């Protein structure tokens, strides 16, 4: 019991520390720039919603939000779908070059995205896919697919191969086994993979901004256009930051059961 209370205490401390800057961001979002720079107050003395208003009245805001959600969702689905069979292959089979390919996948995450800006720009211009959601979703596959494969492989390797074999003996076809038995066993891995794919794609501003102009312009534009006539627009940035947390929080809320549900390796 004592141990449980210490656990709880540690968690509460960590979460409190973690939430302080977020609270601060919320605080800033409800203040005027003058107040932010001027004094330190725990809560706005002159509560203002102007920052949020600035965002909401900007016509590109709403579409920006939607555009981001579209390409991120596209990317999430593609990444996980592509990664699942590959992760299964790496986990269950050995084949020519397997270890090298596995490591090569990760190397795609070893360069700052800035390096890809110009080449991607040229590539997508050439194929006429500039300013499409698909372009950004495809571009983001570069760093999300390797991540998804690596995480899923890790979780799949935790399932003993005997489960596969028992299922075949029991008469399951491979697709049925994969969907009905295997995937539920790696639920927490899938949940966490989906969330990370969402997160890394959502916060990626450079590529998203470079590959789009009008039709698929994401919130990245708002995020980086932050200097007003009077200087740094702290309040608006903070408000934008607060707003961009919301979809991500929703995603993790939706996958919470996948991540948290225990592993019930019961009747096969």
């Amino acid at each position: 019991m004592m141990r449980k209370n210490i656990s709880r205490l540690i968690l509460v401390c960590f979460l409190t520390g973690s939430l302080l800057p977020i609270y601060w961001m919320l605080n800033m979002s409800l203040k005027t720039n003058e107040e932010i720079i001027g004094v330190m107050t725990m809560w706005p003395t002159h509560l203002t919603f102007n920052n949020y208003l600035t965002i909401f009245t900007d016509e590109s805001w709403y579409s920006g939000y939607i555009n981001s959600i579209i390409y991120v969702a596209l990317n999430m689905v593609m990444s996980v779908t592509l990664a699942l069979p590959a992760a299964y292959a790496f986990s269950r089979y050995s084949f020519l070059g397997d270890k090298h390919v596995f490591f090569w996948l990760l190397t795609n995450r070893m360069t700052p995205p800035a390096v890809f800006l110009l080449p991607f720009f040229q590539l997508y211009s050439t194929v006429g896919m500039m300013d499409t959601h698909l372009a950004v979703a495809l571009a983001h596959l570069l760093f999300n697919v390797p991540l998804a494969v690596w995480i899923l492989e890790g979780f799949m390797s935790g399932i003993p191969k005997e489960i596969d074999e028992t299922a075949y003996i029991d008469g399951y076809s491979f697709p049925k086994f994969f969907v009905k038995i295997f995937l539920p066993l790696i639920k927490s891995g899938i949940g966490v993979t989906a969330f990370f794919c969402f997160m890394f794609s959502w916060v990626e501003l450079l590529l998203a901004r470079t590959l789009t102009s009008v039709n698929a312009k994401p919130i990245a534009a708002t995020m980086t256009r932050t200097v007003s006539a009077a200087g740094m627009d702290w309040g608006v940035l903070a408000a934008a930051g607060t707003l961009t947390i919301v979809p991500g929080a929703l995603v993790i809320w939706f996958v919470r059961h996948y991540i948290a549900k225990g592993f019930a390796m019961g009747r096969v």
Partner: protein
Amino acid sequence: MARIELVNLAHSYKAHPTSPSDYALLPMTMTWDDGGAYALLGPSGCGKTTLLNIISGLVIPSEGQVLFDGKDVTRLPTEARNIAQVFQFPVIYDTMTVRENLAFPLKNRGWKTADITKRVDQIAEILELTSDLKHRASGLTADAKQKISLGRGLVRPDVAAVLFDEPLTVIDPHLKWLLRRKLKEIHHELKLSLIYVTHDQVEALTFADQVVVMTQGEVVQVGSAQVLFEEPEHTFVGYFIGNPGMNLLPCSVSQNKVRINGLETSLSVPENFLHAVNNGSANNVIKLGIRPEFVECHATSIANSLPAQLSMVRNMGTHWLASCQLGEHKVAAKLRHEPGKVGSPIWLSFSSERTLFYVNDKRVR
């Protein structure tokens, strides 16, 4: 080596259960003898794992008591109960060698190293793991890992009972037999109480002295393989045990004769059965049961035989399996010789000694 008693034991996940369907385990009272081998047999969801977990201490029952050698252990935690449990998949410590795995429970109990080594060697020999002692446990095959799992339980001399939760599920079929035999050997040598949960009747019947048949939270019969086969007290037992299971045919009684599909048979009617039928409610479900092994097939009609048609005939090597269409009912028969061709008529008779009667699924003599 414990005598396990269950007194009015029941378990419900609801706070105030009102009807039988609220119970995961319906009230039962049972005694299991010291050193016996018992199997809990039943389909998925029948409550056998719940019962096992109550005995091992992982679940605290909502009603009733569990006694080990007369001592109430109902609320004692698992570690205080002197039991060992083997799970559906091998549970071993990956980073340790086989020896370290087996030594672990003893180390935690503060044993001296020399004693530990001796005991581990002893158990390893019984389980035929001696050559693997130095190896990392994680590199072994599934059946070896299950033996290690089992070994960790056996290594404690004070272990009273070993509980198995479908332990052969992930084992290769040809290795299952070897493991089962090993379990029987251990049972004889170490004289422990063994309780084995399974949905496979072959496993249950070959392993246990007494089989506890369960369905939907209820214990329907406890008995040896022979008793369960010849005298099933519940239609479920008749149907579940045997391959194929018992034939259950709706019947009626009129003028003291048993009729099937309105046709008279020569079966003698047990007294209580007659009484139950005549005085019972009209909604009672009345059936007779006869095992395929005891169905007699005749090529021509004899007195009081029932006409049927052969719908399927198959040579199983050691016997013939026939499916007969008796009106709207199917009757399976296991025969020594080919009964005839598919589609030809056949006459069935059932001997009185082998026919059992059931009212509302319960046997009436």
